[in-house]
């Protein structure tokens, strides 16, 4: 037997080109293209009175300047609202170039095309835009107040409003023996991939064909959107996704204004055009996420069991709503985690503000939901004087209750039914890994040394792999090489490797003979995209199914050639042979030759498939009625619903009693994504996710001033962690297979980030002895919380000491 590749820590096939500088990222392409740059609004909210380009026209190297006035037809209309939902009250989207109003700093107002980017920026500086400045609306509080309104014609700033309820939560809470109110805030952060967005377009005039390269998470989505905007048929547009320098969600949003303007300009000019986003543009003109204000009311019994849960969420969606309400829907549903909430009511308002748009960022609303639920769990434990792990345990859905229906509609429009999971085992593992039961002793030991330490725990359940579908195409070339294609895109997850692992096992060929293409509409036109931890599940399942089809055909052809029963055949190292008599066999490449009946030979091998060579069966046509030429298989995987991964994180922090500096001493993860295809890659995904979780909890925020200016639009001030800020991560795996897909797998891409804010808030709270209700938290903020705690303004946690009187007068 060929070694089974599934489950092995296989080194990535992508890496050879990436470590030698031979990767091809967006800006590595199109050496002869004109460069685009954009005049962007410096104001959060304004009316464009006039755009004066006269001073720019003298710049040598300028090719063109475009404003909204130059656009016609669909290009002049607003960009699409990608995911319509009945809860959307007034769905506003941007224009490709601002039409009269701008609603956030960074919104594109004019497009400049020039010989190179330096010149394009020179031109941008010389274009004078006359703005009538309007009132900004910044932050959830202002948006709710609605004293100022973001969009003309609206009476308030509520873009969408949704209530979901299972049982009568308010009645259950009113009747419960215990009741708590928890009020929480999470601030904005952003995906911030190392490579920004980028678009490169080639218009072929004679062929009337557009080739578009985009640093995107959806080739097929961009293709459809651009075709619609440019009034082209789908068949006239090819979208190719090159190497992508990270996505984390921001590149699933499409079409960006730049993504339609660049191909439009390329066609208008009859010349290649490229736009490579710079870092400042990425901060102000791409997308952010996370900001929510949450009010939780919970009723529970004396054992800590939830009886009713009522959650009210105010969600900041920024200036427009192109991605609909996916993020607050996910928060509303995934908030429940591994627990049975009793009766549940959740209500959200999605709010316009004059800031950058909000679209999914790794975790996509889950970090906020987990923050709400896990902060509530800790509050219950403190209220009852119970162990925090125990409160969680009494509320767990048990393995024998799977599949478990939470009674809600999930983000894919399908029921929120958990397929599998073993939360009690997961809890036992994380307690063991972090040393939960020994922590009290450790805390005492630390205290004796004048050190302050705290322990936190957070649990999550993550719906992964939503439909509607992905496709796989597998083809054996006549030289035996296997070409695999799937439509979704890759931005670091190692799809080329894991899909090859899957196909290698299904076909019995070595991985070195397999070549995988992702995100190229020329190879697989039908696709959705890379989001919601769905790549391995969707495309992995699709290529497995496609490979199985191909295998069946290969065995059928080989059975004829070998005069054997196909049931007696096996494929080992790319050769089909009769089980038990390995000498009798045929190469897959030869089968590929035979699969395509030929009139004309083109080389030695192909002679075998021509008309006068074989022993033909004159009763049948050369290609049977239900067959087609070629050794290839195509199939699509469309799941019934999501599969639910889960995990638990536990953290030990130390807080400096004097400086309020926060240091992570240990970060432990128990992770369950079903069967592991490649543990090396899964752990890498967890590491990266945890790093972003830590970042969002302790370092990163989008600091908008009241005027809507982003104060930290650079890596100097947006504090993406370096290696010095990310702790060593200890991981233990649990594998509860999914019954929903052919491979038993669940998504792993986002998991690591999800409980970050919750677990670090819990640990800091445990160290400090007062509640932490707002994340991220900086040393400066912790210092001020301590001041308020010391003055009695903030109460100690139940069961924890009031602040010790300071022996030193504070200034």
């Amino acid at each position, binding site marked *: 037997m060929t070694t089974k590749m599934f489950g092995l820590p296989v080194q990535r096939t992508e890496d050879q080109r990436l*470590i030698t500088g031979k*990767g091809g990222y967006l800006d590595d392409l199109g050496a002869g293209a004109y460069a685009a740059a954009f005049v962007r609004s410096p104001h959060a909210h304004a009316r464009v009175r006039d755009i004066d380009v006269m001073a720019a026209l003298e710049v040598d190297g300028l090719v063109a300047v475009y404003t909204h006035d130059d656009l016609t037809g669909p290009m002049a209309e607003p960009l699409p609202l990608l995911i319509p939902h009945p809860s959307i009250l007034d769905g506003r989207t941007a224009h490709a170039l601002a039409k009269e109003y701008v609603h956030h700093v960074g919104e594109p107002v004019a497009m400049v095309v020039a010989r190179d980017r330096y010149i394009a920026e020179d031109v941008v500086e010389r274009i004078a835009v006359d703005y009538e400045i309007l009132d900004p609306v910044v932050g959830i509080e202002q948006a709710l107040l609605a004293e100022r309104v973001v969009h003309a014609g609206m009476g308030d700033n509520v873009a969408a409003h949704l209530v979901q309820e299972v049982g009568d939560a308010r009645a259950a809470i009113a009747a419960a023996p215990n009741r708590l109110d928890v009020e929480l805030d999470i601030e904005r952060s952003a995906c911030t991939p190392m490579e920004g967005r980028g678009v490169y377009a080639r218009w072929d005039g004679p062929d009337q064909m557009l080739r578009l390269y985009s640093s995107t998470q959806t080739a097929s989505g961009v293709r459809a959107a651009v075709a619609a905007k440019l009034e082209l048929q789908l068949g006239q547009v090819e979208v190719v996704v090159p190497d992508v320098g990270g996505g984390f969600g921001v590149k699933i949003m499409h079409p960006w204004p730049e993504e339609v303007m660049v191909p439009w300009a390329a066609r208008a000019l009859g010349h290649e055009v490229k736009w490579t986003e710079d870092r400042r543009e990425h901060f102000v003109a791409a997308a952010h996420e996370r900001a929510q204000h949450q009010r939780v009311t919970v009723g529970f019994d004396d054992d800590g069991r939830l009886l009713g849960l009522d959650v009210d969420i105010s969600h900041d969606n920024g200036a427009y709503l192109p991605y609909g309400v996916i993020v607050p829907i996910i928060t509303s549903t995934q908030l429940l985690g591994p627990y049975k909430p009793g009766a549940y009511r959740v209500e959200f308002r999605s709010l316009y503000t004059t800031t950058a748009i909000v679209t999914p960022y790794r975790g996509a609303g889950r970090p906020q939901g987990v923050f709400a639920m896990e902060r509530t769990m800790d509050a219950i434990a403190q209220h009852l004087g119970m162990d925090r792990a125990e409160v969680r345990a009494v509320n767990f859905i048990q393995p024998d209750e799977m599949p478990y229906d939470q009674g809600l509609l999930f983000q894919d429009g399908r029921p929120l039914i958990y397929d599998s999971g073993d939360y009690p085992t997961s809890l036992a593992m994380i307690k063991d890994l972090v040393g939960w039961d020994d922590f009290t002793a450790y805390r005492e030991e630390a205290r004796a040394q004048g050190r302050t330490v705290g322990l936190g725990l957070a649990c999550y359940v993550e719906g992964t792999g939503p439909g509607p579908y992905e496709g796989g195409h597998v083809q054996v070339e006549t030289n035996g090489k296997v070409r695999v294609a799937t439509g979704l895109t890759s931005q670091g997850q190692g799809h080329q490797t894991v899909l090859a692992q899957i196909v290698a096992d299904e076909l019995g060929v070595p991985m070195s003979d397999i070549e995988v293409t992702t995100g190229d509409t020329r190879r697989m036109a039908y696709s959705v995209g890379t989001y919601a931890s769905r790549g391995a599940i969707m495309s992995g399942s699709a290529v497995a199914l496609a490979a199985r089809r191909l295998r069946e055909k290969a065995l059928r052809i080989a059975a004829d050639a070998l005069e054997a029963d196909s049931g007696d055949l096996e494929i080992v190292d790319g050769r089909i042979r009769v089980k038990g008599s390995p000498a009798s066999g045929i190469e897959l490449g030869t089968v590929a030759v035979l699969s395509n009946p030929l009139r004309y030979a083109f080389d030695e091998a192909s002679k075998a498939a021509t008309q006068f060579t074989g022993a033909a069966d004159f009763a049948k046509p050369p290609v049977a009625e239900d067959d087609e030429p070629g050794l290839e298989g195509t199939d699509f995987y469309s799941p019934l619903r999501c599969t639910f991964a889960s995990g638990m994180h536990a953290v030990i922090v130390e807080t400096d009693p004097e400086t309020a500096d926060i240091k992570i001493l240990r970060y432990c993860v128990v992770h369950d994504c079903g069967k592991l295809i490649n543990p090396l890659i899964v752990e890498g995904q967890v590491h*990266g996710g945890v790093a972003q979780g830590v970042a969002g909890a302790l370092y990163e925020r989008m600091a908008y001033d009241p005027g809507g200016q982003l104060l930290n639009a650079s890596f100097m001030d947006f504090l993406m962690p370096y290696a010095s800020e990310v702790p060593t991560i200890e991981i233990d795996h649990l594998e509860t297979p999914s019954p929903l897909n052919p491979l038993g797998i669940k998504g792993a891409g986002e998991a690591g980030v999800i409980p970050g804010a919750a677990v670090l808030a819990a640990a800091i709270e445990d160290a400090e002895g007062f509640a932490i209700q707002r994340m991220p938290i900086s040393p400066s903020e912790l210092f001020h919380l301590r001041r308020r705690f010391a003055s009695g303004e903030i109460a100690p946690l139940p069961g924890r000491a009031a602040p010790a009187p300071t022996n030193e007068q504070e200034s």
Partner: protein
Amino acid sequence: MSEELHEIRLRVNGAVHTATVPARRLLSDCLRHDLGLTGTHVGCEHGVCGACTVRIDGRPMRSCLMFAVTAQAHEITTVEGLAAADGTLHPVQRAFRECHGLQCGFCTPGFLNVAAAYLDDNPDPTEEQAREAIGGNLCRCTGYQNIVRAVLRAAELRRADGMPVPEQAAPEDARTPGDR
């Protein structure tokens, strides 16, 4: 109005290249767009992320914070020049692949250059030193854990390859300043 151009000669990866550029042409852009060496990536253009790090006379520096005209006096090594002429990968390249020290790969060339230069001076780092060595470069994918592991692994591979150890018999602080 048109801009004054400079004829420059750059020594990159052992070969001499010529280009005609304005003085403001950043070395990063010159390498990528004038010389076609697109392995050097640009992540922030304000010197923080380190994706554009190349080695200048062996020392890692930010190519986005240097003008191509200024770089003429130096020997420049980019990621394309890390492997041996016969294609044999440098130990840091092998180690990054082996340890899954990269995901999207965009920051990787900068990390490889920093790690290669660091190990030339410090062939046997501790884990803490390895972490500090790569502490000035940003990666959004890996959480750095496997990059740290890769630096340590590269040190092992380097020793196994018998790569030259610098005149390291003397403690580092005894070196004369001019020997860099």
